[in-house]
C-alpha cells in the first residue's frame, strides 16, 4: 500500500490547527479580560 503521506500531514495538521486554535482562543479571552480590568487609556 502507498504511504499516503498527505493524509498523515492532513491529520497532524488538523490536530495542530485545532489545538493551536484552542490555545489562541484561550489566550485571546485572557487578554480581553485583562484589558477589561485595566483603566481605559485616554484616546489622543
Amino acid at each position, binding site marked *: 500500500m502507498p504511504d499516503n503521506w498527505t493524509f498523515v500531514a492532513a491529520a497532524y495538521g488538523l490536530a495542530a490547527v485545532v489545538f493551536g486554535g484552542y490555545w489562541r482562543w*484561550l489566550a485571546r479571552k485572557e487578554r480581553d479580560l485583562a484589558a477589561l480590568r485595566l483603566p481605559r487609556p485616554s484616546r489622543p
Partner: protein
Amino acid sequence: MSTALGWLAAVGLAAGLVMGFGVAPREVTQGNVQRIMYLHVPAVWVAYLAFAVGVAGSIAYLAGRRPGADRLAHAACEVGTVFLGVNIATGAIWGKPTWGTWWTWDARLTSVAVVFVMFVAYLLLRQAIEDRERAARYAAVLSIVAALNIPLVHFSVYWWRTLHQPPSLLKPGSSTMPPEIVAALLVNFAALALLGAYFVTRRARLLAAEEEALA
C-alpha cells in the same frame, strides 16, 4: 502551574513526534499512513480521561457546591470534547486511504460519535443558561447522565454491529503489538495528557477570571 505544564507538554509533544515518526516502524500492510494512530488513539484516551475528571468534578460540585469543582468540571469536559473531536477527525482522515471511506458506522466510530454529541450538548447547555449557579448544577447532572450512559452506548452499538450473538467479552482483545509501537503510543499519550492538563488548568483559570470580572 499551567505554564510549567505547558512547557512539559511541548517537550512531550516533541518526544511524541520523534517516537511516532522515528522510532516506530513502518507498518507492513498500511504503510506510513498508520502513523496517524499515534495521534488518533492517545487523543481518545485523553478525551475519556478528561471526561472522567469532568464527571468527578461534577459529583464533587453537587456534593460540596464549591465553584472550583464546577470550573474543573466545565474545563475538563470542554477539553475532552476538543480531544474527542480531534480523534474523530483524524480517524476519518486515517480511514479514507485505508478503508476507502471517510466514515463507517462501525462500533467504535459510532459510539465515540454519540459520546461526542452528548458532550457537545453539555457545552450547549452551559452556554444556554445565564445564571452561573444553575448552569453549574444542571451541567453537573447532565454530565453524570452522559457518563453513566457511555457504557450503555458502547454495549448497544457494539452488539448492533456484531449482528447476532452477543459477545462474551467486553470487546475482542487486541493482538500483542511490538514494543516500539506500544512505547510510541504511551509517549504520545503522556504528551497529549500533559497538553490536556495544560488546557484544563488554563481554561479553569480563565473561568475563574471571568467570574471575578462579572462579580
